[in-house]
């Protein structure tokens, strides 16, 4: 029995419930996070999430330039999500695309509930995300790494923000869609989640889901976020409490 996706004859899910890259339906790709990887940034993190390779640097709280953007009541958060020209199959032009601008915004809004900006009026916290190699789910990977970089910078936070996508492949809800599943599958739903406050701070959806599938998909993604949360915590622990933590 061959179960194909919408665009290709790739076998996205075989009769044993194994996906095209060998994973089970509730399994994430390999994830590695390292905190404190940059010399000049106030905080930083590097993540490999499947074939995503993303580095994040955080500066702040610091003075706002230009000054008229400063807010006397609270700190502000800025975020740039940017892809290196060599990060994708066809070389990306350096100017920010509309996609990058949108992702910058949704990641910023996903992190805002977690950051205690009200403690730093008139200042800015800048989050710079660089995608060195892109794979499916790069916005979730970027969000997870950005959250670790904020913590590494010592910015007071209410909670970590974890992130993981779920999606639909061969009419089945699966965790952590990869690039092939994104192209050939039926739906992709990236989710950002504060595990202790139990709040979803990022959610998007491309693709068709019944209302029941929709609920299951969110729940599946939240499950993934909880797995990622453990890896985020480990990255910070490794840096601050292990002997081998010197970069």
């Amino acid at each position, binding site marked *: 029995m061959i179960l194909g996706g919408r665009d290709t004859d790739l076998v996205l899910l075989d009769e044993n419930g194994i996906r095209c890259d060998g994973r089970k339906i509730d399994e994430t790709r390999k994830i590695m996070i390292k905190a404190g990887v940059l010399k000049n940034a106030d905080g930083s993190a590097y993540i490999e999430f499947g074939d995503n390779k993303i580095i994040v640097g955080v500066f702040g709280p610091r003075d706002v330039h230009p000054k*008229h*953007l*400063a*807010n*006397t*009541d*609270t700190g*502000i958060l800025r975020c740039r999500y940017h892809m290196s020209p060599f990060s994708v199959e*066809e070389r990306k032009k350096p100017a920010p695309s*509309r*996609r990058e*601008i*949108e992702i*910058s*915004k*949704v990641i910023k*809004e*996903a992190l*805002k*509930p977690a950051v205690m900006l009200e403690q730093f009026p008139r200042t800015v916290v800048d989050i710079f995300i660089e995608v060195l190699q892109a794979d499916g789910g790069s916005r979730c990977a970027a969000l997870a790494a950005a959250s670790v970089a904020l913590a590494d910078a010592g910015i007071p936070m209410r909670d970590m923000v974890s992130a993981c996508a779920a999606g639909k492949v061969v009419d089945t809800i699966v965790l952590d869609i990869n690039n092939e599943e994104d192209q050939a599958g039926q739906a992709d*739903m990236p989710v950002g989640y*504060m595990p202790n406050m*139990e*709040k*979803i*701070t*990022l*959610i*998007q*959806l*491309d*693709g*068709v*889901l*019944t*209302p029941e599938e*929709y*609920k299951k998909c*969110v*729940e599946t993604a*939240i499950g993934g976020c909880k797995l990622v949360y453990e890896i985020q915590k480990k990255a910070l622990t490794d840096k601050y409490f292990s002997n081998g933590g010197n970069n």
Partner: protein
Amino acid sequence: MGNVSLIDQLKGQKIHDLLEQGKRVDGRSFDEPRQLTIETGVIPKAEGSARVHLGDTEVVTGIKVQPDKPFPDLGDKGIFICTAEILPLAHPDAEPGPPGEDVIELARVVDRGIRESGMVDLAQLVLEKDKTVLGIFADSSIIDHAGNLFDACSYATTAALLSTKIPKWEMQDDVPVKVEGQESDAPITTIPVSITMGRIGEHIIVDPNADEWSCLDARITITTNSDGNICALQKGGKDGFTLEQLVKCGETSVTVGAKIRETLKEIKGASQ
């Protein structure tokens, strides 16, 4: 920026207080969108067009159809592109110039809802595989900004597409040539409807108006197709949602969306 005026604070407080009493500032129920009126054919020179009032928010969308090169690796599909501009006459704070992140997100959310629903069968817009296809450009000009541009632009774009007549083009000597006097309806497969909901405290309200919009904690736009399935979704705003809230928003998008779809279906009938 940043320094909320006293008036705005009082207005926000009023909105909160009313919500606690189960009321909205303009008297609507929580799941009731503002009045929607749609006119199509308002720009006769465009291939399709619509003017939408959603409460005091007003949008004109025009559709242009013209030959173009397909995207790489998508040589068997036509092109579909949505843009939006908040005209500077639409609001005192709107400024002319290239779109900021808000407007880019707006256009992409409108685009995604229509694209992911499969509303337009792009495979029918190919003139010569890998070389020349038809592009459908759906450009929304926002004329009055009174909150919830997402749904106003979505409805205007959907309505304009429903009213679109696609001219016939033929390849002659490798060049696309328009055949005058022949046209057909756009290849429509379903009618997507977006419903935007805002959260203020623990309350979820459909189609926030301008005053409500300015004090949202979070918002979500969910698009459903004619089958009542969910095909696109976008969360925004400075805070999040619980799982329960999200599930409830999904249900609301289906039920309220079904009513809006009836209004849109009338257009479709009218244009045929």
